[in-house]
């Protein structure tokens, strides 16, 4: 491929390209999970939401342009929106169920992974074959270089840029706005929130639904930008890694951005090496993100203290 023309330089370039391309799902899911966890609930089911988002975005993009007569430029964007809404539906189920008395939110998350991926695979079966119109790129590379490999490496999706913009925005939202304060209060000290007259249930419901909306958009990125197709192995645990990533990022949206870039980078190592002809141990390289996530969790967690930045009510059965 193009990597042959520039030899081993293809590896760092490939990793850079992969970072720009594959960190967006991590970013959206981790921002969604960050929002959810700030309100004191965990949503492990975002893996299922991601798949559901990927499937519905792809299906709508395909159906819209082929069957319903939309322009191929518009239908992917409708797909992104529908993916977010599909995420919201799953988020509502999670939010409602996990706030029932005696119901554990982690268990609900596991159930939602199974349910979400089941529904996505069930409804997505007819869409594995056809090719749906994709979201456009900003051709940043074309301004900077004539080498085709560099040009294709520096294609940047507008969706990714939206995610990058969203991170500081969310940080500001938590820090400086009234609703942000309410969310932090509900997550840190439900009793205090109750005393402020905030409805814990409502805040958590909204946070989980909004978080799932973001995760659904992350799924749309998977199927409409990179890798840009729909199949059953498309997410392979990225939703879950993003949940672990939030712990690594200490529940700080801006750090979620850096962590997502880092994770996208490790995910790109395997394919980048494969592109220059390294084939042995490719499965091990592809497992690098999982190993890395585990290592990061081992390093950052500690039994002696609660993590700085962790919402106080997280993981407790309250409210």
């Amino acid at each position, binding site marked *: 491929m193009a990597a042959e023309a520039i030899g081993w330089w293809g590896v760092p370039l490939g990793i850079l390209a992969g970072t720009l391309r594959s960190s967006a799902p991590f970013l959206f899911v981790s921002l969604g999970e960050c929002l959810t966890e700030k309100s004191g609930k965990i949503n*492990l089911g975002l893996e299922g939401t991601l798949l559901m988002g990927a499937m519905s975005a792809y299906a709508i993009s395909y159906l819209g342009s082929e069957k319903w007569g939309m322009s191929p430029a518009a239908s992917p964007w409708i797909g992104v929106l529908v993916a977010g809404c599909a995420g919201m539906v799953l988020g509502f*189920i999670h939010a409602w*169920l996990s706030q*029932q*008395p*005696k*119901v*554990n939110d*982690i*268990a*609900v*998350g*596991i*159930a*939602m992974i*199974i*349910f*979400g*991926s*089941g*529904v*996505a*695979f*069930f409804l997505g*079966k007819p869409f594995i074959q056809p090719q749906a119109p994709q979201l456009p790129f900003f051709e940043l590379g074309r301004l900077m270089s004539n080498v085709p490999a560099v040009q294709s490496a520096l294609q940047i999706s507008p969706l990714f840029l939206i995610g990058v913009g969203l991170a500081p925005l969310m940080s500001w939202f938590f820090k400086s706005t009234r609703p942000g304060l309410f969310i932090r209060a509900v997550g840190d000290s439900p009793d205090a929130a109750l005393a402020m007259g905030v409805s814990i249930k409502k805040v958590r419901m909204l946070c989980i639904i909004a978080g799932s909306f973001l995760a659904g958009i992350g799924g749309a990125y998977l199927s409409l930008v990179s890798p840009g197709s729909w199949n*059953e192995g498309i997410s*392979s*645990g990225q939703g*879950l*890694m993003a*949940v*672990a990533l939030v*712990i690594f990022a200490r529940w700080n949206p801006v750090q979620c951005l850096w962590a997502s870039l880092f994770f996208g980078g490790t995910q790109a190592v395997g394919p980048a090496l494969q592109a220059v002809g390294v084939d*042995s*141990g490719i*499965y*091990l390289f*592809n*497992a690098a993100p*999982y*190993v890395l*996530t*585990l290592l990061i*969790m*081992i390093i950052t*967690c*500690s*039994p002696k203290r609660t993590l700085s930045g962790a919402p106080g009510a997280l993981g407790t059965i309250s409210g």
Partner: protein
Amino acid sequence: MSKTPQSRIWIANGLGMLSRYNWRKIAEAIALPVGALLFSLILFGIFCAFCGKNPFAVYGLIYKSAFGSWRSFQGTLLRAAPLMLTALCTALPARLGLMIIGNEGALVMGGLGAIAAGLLLSYGSITPSPEQLQNVSGIPSAGVLLGMALAGIVAGGLWIAVVGALRHYRAVNETISSLLMNYIAIALMNHLVGGPIKDPGETIKASSFSLPEMNRLINLPTTRIHYGLFYGLIACVIAYFLIQRTTFGFAARTAGGNVKAARIAGLPVGKLTVMICFLAGSCAGLAGMAEVAAVHGRVNESLVAGYGYTGILVAFVARYNPIACTLVAVLLGGILSSGGALQRTLDMPDATALVFQGLVFLVILFSESLYGRFRVFKEPIAPIAAPPLPPSSSTTVSA
């Protein structure tokens, strides 16, 4: 006058004897999951109807292909065998308050350990040369199988013990870490069968070398069911006694109920965590061994068949009770085995089983919140214990 209190005492005594067995609680523990299963069947029917299928045809087909004949029931039991074992991988740590979902990974690791031991004991090498393939060693088949079972148990056990140790010593969330370990185990398996232990003769699907026919786990006479089913049944019974009737189990349940109290009582919580996790993983590892030794005869991608994830569901529906796990495993094994028929006859995607499992899971979780909400299942106050009504209260009632 004197007769009424006497009969009241009898009734009270009778109720007292019954309440010693807590039958209302038992009835509740059976009725709620069964009700939840029925309700999820209804929801699933609605889902099918939305997809343009006749729900009753779907129900009929599931019943027919899961329990309808002895032949189809054999297929159900064949799937129930690994489910019982993988369910224990979630059910045992749950008694300690841990939610471990690394069943699939432990199963794969158990399968890898088993195939390594099996090939070593049969041929003297994991990658036997053509000459070695010709002469199978003289170790009796039972010895080879025992070696495989031990290797599977240790491999799966250590895999989950790591999760337990990380939980206790580093406070790493066990749910996330065990799920990550699934992906790592599957990647490791793909790496090994794709290179280091690959059978070059196998061209369709990258696989390890096959076990010799004589060293496989045999079927029960005249059936397709292999002896792995007994592994599951025995493991569930042992697990039940271990949890309910031994000091070790009591310590584990105490730590699961209240870690601080357990620590103050001097229980070694860390050791308990790691040991329970080891036992849990070893059950799933044994399931992997049985799958390798009886069904596949080798290790390849087919080992990752979703038994791990269904096992989680079995454990939840059984409310972590190992004896109940056996029954639930048969029930869900039947639904799994009907997946093929749904695909062939009604042209439904294979993910149908996954949708149904997800629905069951959600409804079962919702049913958790219903415990203690039905008056039928509440202990009534024995009549003799009720204080005589003061005259004033009766006047207020009438007024």
